[in-house]
């Protein structure tokens, strides 16, 4: 990360955004031309090495992306469902294989066979429909079940904007500090994975003096198996937008940036439409008010890089820099986007904020458990009889989720990988004993994360799943810190070798590698990978031991 580049690309503010322009430049052929990279570099007073370095980072901008038209999802659920080889076969009947690339996770985990064609997502199409797609282009709106038990904070319809946004009047009648206090007292924790209390972040940014501050919505929901944020953006966009405005008011930020995954084209469209509705309905710009508060939105379409879900990488990405993880401090709330105080919160977190303002932080706090307040959206994959998005109060028994909401599994599942690739790998038997909240998961050696459910069926080899996790990490690692860049690659190679030859993994070495990743990595990608791997080694030793040298004590 370069402080200089943060300043330089920040000179043009958000209106003329380098990352945006790079994305646009790559639309035509799949990768920006060198000529344009040089031109953009000159325009922003940075080096051609920088624009080139950024472009080569992203799946949808790198030179290898040139000419790709179809992207097949290679996320964990589609992998476990085993649908993608067949899909590839089917698609290659209609399009040259050189034009087929990969995307990691389109969020169509409820039905699989997911792919993206010319900017639209499809899943579970029949052969006939695929054939039709290549002759008459159509869009497919996917369907999944949505329900809630307990409080419906996130799943309740927001209704007409004119009435929903009346909450702004209440907000403006309060001091920013009072709004901040409500959020603090709600004890709302970040839903993106880390579970950091939102109020503390806001407090820091509010107390940092600066000309400009930013609220960023992290809508780079990259965890395979998760589509809760996609649900909010596409079905409840206004709870998110209003949440951002309120958060902006609380800290004195006048800009809201939505950084939305390129793999979710529908989300981008719907959010953009929702913002333009706010303008056409006269809700934005805000009228004059005694706090002189105004708020503007900027939608940024991401370009395919899992690491951008990490907040500092995301900030660098918006700046047009390579999205490499930054050291902390400085924390973004003090020095973030363009070196200005910045709040980065996940979609679901922000979508809770209107409810908190409306009903008060104390009311919100009564929902869920004392440590994990509020509700949580969970996304269930296609191995459930009723896949979909469910809103549950924090602390709800997992059994209720699996059986009552999900309707149980379609086939035998040995483990559920909950909370993304870095979440815990929970044996199904164990899952039934737990409640869904931060503390139960942590105490049992797992991680709630994003609360996405990826089911691993009985017959799916765990060694292959672990190799997939290492490979995913290696492919998505920003490459900045040594342990993650090198360790994820070596782990992937060792597992692959053990699957395909009589090579047996040295347990001590493997354990050293996990320690190195866990203790040494700069961010949660390398640092989090050992958790599911260790879960697997602990609970599925009998299945995995054949790939390792005879057990020694470690």
């Amino acid at each position, binding site marked *: 990360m370069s402080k200089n580049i943060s300043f330089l690309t920040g000179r043009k503010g958000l209106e003329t955004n380098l990352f945006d322009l790079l994305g646009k430049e790559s639309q035509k052929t799949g990768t920006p031309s060198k000529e344009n990279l040089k031109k953009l570099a000159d325009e922003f007073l940075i080096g051609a090495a920088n624009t080139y370095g950024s472009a080569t980072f992203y799946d949808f901008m790198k030179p290898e992306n040139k000419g790709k038209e179809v992207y097949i999802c290679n996320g964990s659920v589609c992998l476990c469902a085993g649908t993608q080889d067949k899909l590839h076969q089917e698609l290659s009947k209609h399009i040259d294989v050189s034009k087929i690339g990969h995307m990691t996770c389109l969020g169509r985990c409820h039905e699989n066979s997911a792919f993206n064609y010319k900017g639209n997502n499809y899943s579970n199409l029949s052969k006939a429909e695929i054939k039709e797609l290549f002759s008459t282009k159509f869009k497919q709106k996917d369907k999944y079940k949505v329900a809630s038990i307990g409080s419906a904070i996130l799943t309740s319809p927001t209704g007409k904007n004119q009435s929903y946004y009346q909450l702004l009047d209440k907000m403006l009648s309060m001091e920013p500090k009072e709004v901040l206090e409500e959020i603090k007292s709600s004890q709302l924790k970040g839903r993106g994975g880390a579970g950091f209390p939102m109020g503390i972040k806001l407090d820091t940014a509010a107390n940092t003096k600066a000309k400009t501050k930013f609220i960023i919505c992290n809508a780079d929901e990259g965890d395979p198996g998760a589509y809760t944020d996609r649900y909010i953006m596409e079905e409840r966009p206004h709870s998110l937008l209003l949440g951002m405005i309120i958060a902006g008011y609380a800290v004195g930020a006048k800009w809201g940036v939505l950084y939305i995954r390129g793999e979710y084209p529908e989300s981008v469209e719907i959010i953009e439409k929702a913002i333009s509705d706010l303008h056409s309905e006269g809700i934005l710009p805000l009228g004059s008010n005694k706090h002189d508060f105004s708020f503007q939105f900027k939608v940024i379409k991401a370009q395919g890089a899992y690491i951008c879900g990490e907040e500092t990488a995301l900030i660098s990405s918006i700046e047009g820099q390579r999205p490499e993880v930054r050291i902390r*401090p400085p924390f973004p709330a003090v020095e973030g986007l363009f070196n200005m105080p910045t709040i980065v919160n996940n979609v679901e977190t922000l979508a809770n904020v209107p409810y908190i303002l409306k009903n008060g932080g104390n009311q919100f706090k009564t929902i869920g458990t004392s440590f994990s307040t509020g509700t949580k959206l969970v996304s269930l994959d296609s191995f459930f009889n009723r896949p979909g998005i469910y809103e549950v109060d924090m602390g709800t028994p997992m059994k209720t989720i699996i059986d009552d909401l999900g309707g149980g599994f379609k086939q035998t599942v040995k483990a559920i990988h909950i909370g993304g690739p870095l979440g815990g790998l929970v044996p199904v038997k164990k899952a039934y004993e737990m409640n869904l909240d931060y503390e139960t998961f942590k105490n049992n050696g797992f991680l709630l994360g994003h609360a996405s459910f990826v089911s691993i069926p009985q017959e799916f080899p765990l060694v292959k799943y672990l190799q997939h996790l290492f490979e995913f990490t290696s492919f998505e690692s920003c490459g900045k810190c040594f342990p993650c860049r090198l360790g994820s690659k070596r782990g992937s190679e060792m597992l692959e070798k053990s699957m395909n030859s009589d090579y047996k993994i040295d347990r001590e070495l493997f354990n050293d590698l996990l320690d190195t990743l866990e203790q*040494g990595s700069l961010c949660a990608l390398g640092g989090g990978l050992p958790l599911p791997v260790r879960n697997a080694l602990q609970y599925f030793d009998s299945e995995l031991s054949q790939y390792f040298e005879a057990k020694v004590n470690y």
Partner: protein
Amino acid sequence: MKVAYINNEAFEMKEGETILSFLRRHQGQDSVPTLCDAPNLDPFGSCRVCSVDVALEKDGNARPMASCHAPLSENYYIYPDSPKIEKLRKNIIELVLTDHPLDCLTCEVNNNCELQEVAARVGIRDVRYPAGETHLDRKKDLSHAYMTSDLSKCINCYRCVRACDEVQGQFVLSMAGRGFDNKIVMGMDQTFAESDCVSCGACSQACPTSAISDIFESKSIRAKDKTRTICTYCGVGCNLEVSSVGEEILSIRAPYDAEVNQGHTCLKGRYAFSFYNHSERLRDPMIKRNGVFEKVSWDEAYTFIVDKFNSIKENHGPDAIAAVSSSRCTNEENYLMQKFTRAVIGTNNIDGCARVCHSPTALGMQRSFGTGAATNSIEDIKLTNCMMVIGANPTEAHPVTGVKIKQRAMKGNTLIVIDPRTTELAKYADFHLAVRPGSNVAVLNMMLHYIIKEGLEDTNFISSRTEGYDQFKKEILELDIDEMEKICGVDKELVRKAAIAYASAPNAMSFHGLGVTEHSQGTFTVQLISDLAMVTGNIGRPGVGVNPLRGQNNVQGSADMGVQPHQGAGYMDINDPLVIEKYDKFYGVPVPLGEGLKIPEMFDACLDQRLKGMWIIGEDLAQTDPNTQKVVKSLKNLEILVVQELFMTETALLADVILPGASFLEKSGTFTNGERRIQRVNAVVKPVGNSKVDGQIIIDIMNRMGYKQADYDPKTMLEEISQIVHFFKGVTWDRLGINGLQWPVLEDGTDTKILHTEEFRRGKGLLTNFDFKESMEIEKNGKEYPFILTTNRDLEHYNCGAMTRRTNNVLINTQDVLWINPIDAESKGVKDGDLVCIESARGKVDIRAWVTEDVRQGVLSTTFHFPEIMINNITSDVHDSEAMCPEYKVVSVDFRKAKNAAFRKEGKFVENA
């Protein structure tokens, strides 16, 4: 006292420090192994090798933290080498070695490799991973004149990328790709030569392995000796560490503990040293007989010179002899040269290159403040909020200072650039006032007008520290701004905004260069810059001031030492009989009263034969002074011309006697940089061939002309100087130490970073307004020659290029070119790369066209580094009305496409591809 614990022992902590700096402070610099950390770079956190165990209570549950970026908190319990940490480090290095060629014995950095050292330290005995994918097949890049790279050795620590960004601010290097396939790229994955690399070498110095190095293998351990000295190129005064074996210089690096340059320098300082033993170095004294130079002994040369000087003195008086001393020589040598001229010859006809560069600065600032030197230090850039750079292109001519300004500007601090050309800094500027050359006075008038009109003047400062304000204000407010706007050709609203930005900044600092001084109104412009600083109260504290960017490495020093015809050593007025009395007493012989000749006057005196003999040291007047034909004619008119030089320059060719002098690498002494910092120069090797240290040559002739002067020794010379130059009072060789002292240096050795803190040297600061006056050159020749040519400098070459053209710099920058605005080019049917003929009232030269938006319409611009072009054939001898500095910056010219598509002196230099 706040404490934290290392292995359960309490140590005092500092607020805001990292764990790494805490550990280094208490346990030594090498206490923690690191790879991605470097002394002049921000913490980055990629290698993780610096991890240490941290617990919140004694022997508590410890968590590894990367010490380089983890802030220290009170009562942390740090276990820097716990078994867990030792294992972690070993495991990380083992991973690194899975993708590193283990060919240490044949590697440039064998025994000086940070990876090797850390690997040895953590005790790697085995790489346990099965063979996997690697990047060992990455190709070497040997395309560049200096830089080399072998990325198979790269460990992805980003130090080179960060050095290029955080130190040089050039953004030539980046990581490209993602994850395991990350790789360093130059530009858009080009070669070093194809990229925009400015060859500063910061990346090479930063690289912990040999992944990026240079053709000199500067990181090998071949060198037996390392000598610290000061760069000979430009007035920044970078400290260099020169590696050598015997009489061979191997390479140069920049010391991190140098206060001036903190481990950085430009390609001239780091790489352009190989001229020192170039085959064309003058190695023997020579006398020209029948138009041919013949090698002679020193004795013969000395006798020839002494006889001639004695006879001229006898027959025509001492004023028939003049001397030009060299700003590339040491203070001691310059002192000796003026002493020789005054005390031995008996004339004040002594001048130096300051005449053609910053003489208006010295004079103007003396008039305004009482002292003709930079008021502040370069380190103040870190404290300023607004920088005004007028008539200077420091990223080319003062690169290390230039990048400091650029770095500060990039970080959101206001930058105002006043320059007819879009210089690199202008691109980063908030306000670029692209004035028409010659109109600096008008634009400064406008700024002052707006500041006073907007009520942004600092009334307290004005009333307590200055004089002349009422009259000044009256004149400034009466100005016709629309008229001024027309003259300088810059939108008045832009000028107003820039003026407001300068005046409202908490601290505003100005820098100026030859684009201010080399004008007929040069001295007045300097005084107006000083006015601007005083009116806004930007004098006498950190982060403000008037800071001329002095050109040659010791041009400050040569003037300090008395190399000027109107002031002796220590700036004492030689028109004052009391001063003369003092000098008489000090030198032990009578010295002359009354001003001597300035360089331009010397030429006139040659022509009318008032001057018969001249001794020029290290200054190529024939190539670098304006109106070449006149200069050559003048020098040819002398009875004896002695030229003391390193190379056969255009001036040396005209000499009767050649004395081979020594380069900065071959002598000791002191240089004074542009911020008044006196620094020690240390000889690395002996003078080549039969050449001699310049100071000794002067002393030899002094002795032969009957004046007793002990052999050249910087220590004793400094003792002598400190007794006559008041601001050197406390200067001794030992006291200067490695980072030097900034004058005035008090008797007890205390030096001065900022001048005029309480009061000005002259008492009150003098506010004076000056009205714009069109240059005589334009008045006289503007109609017939409607374009304005302005000359300047390129990064790769230094002045006449005698040194830099004899290094690989010439492979990077091969020729002088003429900048032409596309509209002007089109109007003349000239295309980029065409040979054009440029003509003035003095003559014409052919030069290659470079069509660029970076110069405004109506203005042409070029450099004067190559004798093949000799651009000074066409420059004028109009000069500053006060200090006689020539007006290089305003030459009335016209141009056309050349009739022949070949150069007049075809084949002399390498063409651009």
